[in-house]
């Protein structure tokens, strides 16, 4: 659910005045050279590397299992490589992936998930940015009251509205369809808030100049404000992608036909099977997780800095 993205603005963390920044960094460097002794740094690295092992082990275990042949999965000593349980020879296989994609319905689910994000995210960016721009830059009667309504909806816990939202979506004829997954998430109050904060910081001169040239608001929005808002739009795009790609609850309650399942639903159905088939489930998990990890690795600095700044929590 869009509102389940329990988000809020961070309190004023890390908001030292920027003029202070230079002295702060140099002070920081001095302090470090002065008193972060090598022994302490080494200890920190050792502990953190231990943390890295713990953080990554589940992923390694997932990938290893996904390449194992069924008879090599249940071994008394866990094996982090897909080798033959008896001979120890390399026995990695892609068969689990092919089986999951075909019989497990993951090919269809992958396509459905792609359709959802490809339609949802541009649509959502446009609607959220339009509203955010108006709330930030266009004076119109009732603006603050409307914005307050949007803000208030951020406070509502997502699951509290689950049942009536399903009802409304079904009444609109979108039950058990991808439209029913997409349309109810087309507007996110938090993203409107985030983009509005960004549009507020834009200098007014560019708009003034465009207006004197006779440009209308729509034109200014499209060719002046939006291009300037690229960094904020990027943060919204990436966080929305991660959130909606991973989302389980809303598709679960709105979809029943397996042919419309998105990846998390297909994975849930596979994991719920009576017979334990970790090699298949892990292959499915890899398929579900890889696109997000890929995007994350590419844009990690932008995402992490953005989250650090806004306190965005997905």
């Amino acid at each position, binding site marked *: 659910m869009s509102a389940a993205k329990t988000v809020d603005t961070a309190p004023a963390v890390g908001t030292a005045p920027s003029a202070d920044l230079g002295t702060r960094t140099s002070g920081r460097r001095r302090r470090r050279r002065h008193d972060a002794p090598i022994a302490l740094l080494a200890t920190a690295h050792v502990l953190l590397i231990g943390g890295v092992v713990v953080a990554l082990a589940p992923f390694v275990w997932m990938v290893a299992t996904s390449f194992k042949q069924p008879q090599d999965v249940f071994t008394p000593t866990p094996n982090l490589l897909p080798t033959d349980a008896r001979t120890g020879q390399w026995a990695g296989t892609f068969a689990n992936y092919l089986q999951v994609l075909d019989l497990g319905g993951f090919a269809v689910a992958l396509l459905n998930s792609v359709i959802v994000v490809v339609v949802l995210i541009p649509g959502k960016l446009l609607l959220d940015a339009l509203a955010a721009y108006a709330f930030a830059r266009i004076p119109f009667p009732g603006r603050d009251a409307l914005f307050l309504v949007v803000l208030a909806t951020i406070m509502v816990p997502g699951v509290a509205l689950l049942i009536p939202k399903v009802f409304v979506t079904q009444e609109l004829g979108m039950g058990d369809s991808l439209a029913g997954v997409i349309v109810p998430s087309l507007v996110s109050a938090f993203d409107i808030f985030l983009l509005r904060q960004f549009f507020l910081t834009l200098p007014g001169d560019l708009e003034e100049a465009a207006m004197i040239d006779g440009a209308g608001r729509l034109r200014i929005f499209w060719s002046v404000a939006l291009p300037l808002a690229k960094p904020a739009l990027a943060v919204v795009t990436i966080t929305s992608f991660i959130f909606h790609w991973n989302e389980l609850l809303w598709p679960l309650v709105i979809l029943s036909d397996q042919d419309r399942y998105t990846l998390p639903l297909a994975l849930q159905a596979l994991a719920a099977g009576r017979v334990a088939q970790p090699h298949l489930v892990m292959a499915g*998990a890899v398929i579900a997780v890889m696109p997000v990890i890929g995007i994350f690795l590419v844009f990690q600095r932008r995402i992490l800095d953005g989250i650090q700044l806004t306190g965005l929590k997905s």
Partner: protein
Amino acid sequence: MNGVHRSSSWHRRRRDALAGFAFTAPAMLHTLVFMLVPAGAALYFSFTEWDMISPAHWVGLRNYQEILFDSDLYPDFWKSVRVTALYALLSVPASLVTGFVQAYLIDLLRRGQSLYRLVFYLPVITAEAAVAAIWKWLYDPQFGLINAGLEVLGGTGPDWLGTPGVVIPALALIAAWQSGTAMLIFLAGLKGIPRTYYEAAEVDGANRWQQLGRITLPLLRPTTFYLVVTGVIAALQVFGIVYVLFGGNAGPERSGLSYVLHLYLFGYRNGAMGAASAMSVLLFVTVLLVTAAQFRLVPQQYEE
């Protein structure tokens, strides 16, 4: 001149008003249809008996009364409340402590900060369904990585997801693994503490632990407060992980029956949408109360 100016500004105001309404109309319409109407509907349906198929039938406060007090009709309601409270009580500190230690250590480093930050955030972006599927396999009592690792260290691990008393601690461990958000926010908080404070403490001869206790932790109080509030709100709504781990059984002796899982099972398996709506309203009120209580009880700012 003045008149021309006034009329052009009047024109501009009119055009701005039109543009403002037009730009916000789609988002406001969406908010009306998918937020405000459902909010009203949740409240209305909570006073009805309703299966989503035949028309709702007004029953007044009966749903609330039965959910809260009739243990024959709702034998697991309070169980789900206890499960969720215990989950919040264990998982929020688990992820906050882990996140703080990670952030504190990362902040000490001269290089490699962004690499550690990246790795510790990976579990957060991983889909709930995948997290649950992976951990179900990690926790496997016979063939899972965790118990095998414990055996190597000379111990024997429990049947994590098969023993009622261990289920919630096992979930808290997963929450600790997903400490990336707390780590990031704490890191931002640590970077916001002016270095001059530490320098002054050093001049006064305070050691690193004293600095941690007297400067770092007190100054991070707003950050911690924010993480506790958002963490508790999220924990009260936990669903995906328990649903994928346990499905409709909710674990051994229903030890994984979170509030939302209970609500979901009631609404969707039993078709009791009126009662499920009442549970939604109760959850909403609880979230508001918990948030308000935290704002009142917890000192947010460090007073010098």
